[in-house]
């Protein structure tokens, strides 16, 4: 199981802030995760419809498309940050 976190408007679309998910075998990278998630339902498809607006952190570190994801990871999805 991996722990998925959604922030800001992504959360409104997925309908959840946090969930435990069993990653399918074909999902081993950030890019593969982003390609798979929309298949989980229309809310996920909506949240991820513009991949340019999605940032990913794996275990609280910014991650690139090729970075690995695996069971046990904390994986956060969010839009570009707007703090400060």
């Amino acid at each position: 199981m991996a722990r998925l976190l959604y922030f800001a408007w992504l959360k409104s679309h997925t309908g959840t802030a946090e969930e435990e998910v069993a990653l399918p075998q074909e999902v081993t990278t950030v890019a593969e995760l982003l390609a798979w998630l929309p298949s989980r339902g229309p809310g996920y498809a909506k949240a991820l419809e513009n991949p340019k607006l999605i940032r990913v952190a794996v275990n609280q570190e910014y991650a690139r498309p090729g970075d690995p994801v695996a069971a046990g990871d904390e994986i956060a999805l969010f839009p570009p940050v707007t703090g400060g």
Partner: protein
Amino acid sequence: MTVRVQREAFDLGRELDALSAGNHAIGGLASFVGLVRDVAPPGGEGAALAAMTLEHYPGMTEKMLERIEAEANRRWELEASLIVHRYGRMEPGEPIVLVACASAHRQAALEACQFLIDWLKTKAPFWKVEESDGGEGRWVEARDSDEAAAARWSEDGPKAAE
């Protein structure tokens, strides 16, 4: 080097006084405070802002702020540095964030302060949602100008932020 992420407001004068107190090697203390404006930024069509709420990613926020601050201390010779960033609901006029740097020399203090706020704007996981008068919440979009400001400090030249 201190980083704090908190819901409560902070006392600017007390924070700055504490930062320099007792260290007579400090010749310059630069600070920046970000405040909630009552005007929504471009896209909000100038509607009056009633309040805003900052969501953040507990755990990662502190980690990123500590890393940004450590980087400032690596690049400049600082006697002291401080980042205080709030989350939660805030009304116009309230302080959101404070960055402060103290150094023997003014240039180091001023540059490090600018660096911290520029990087924080693009790296620290905070998201603003604005409430207009009578309207509902609107998530603020990231600005290209913030990316450009942060890219100035990239040691291998401007590049896209992560």
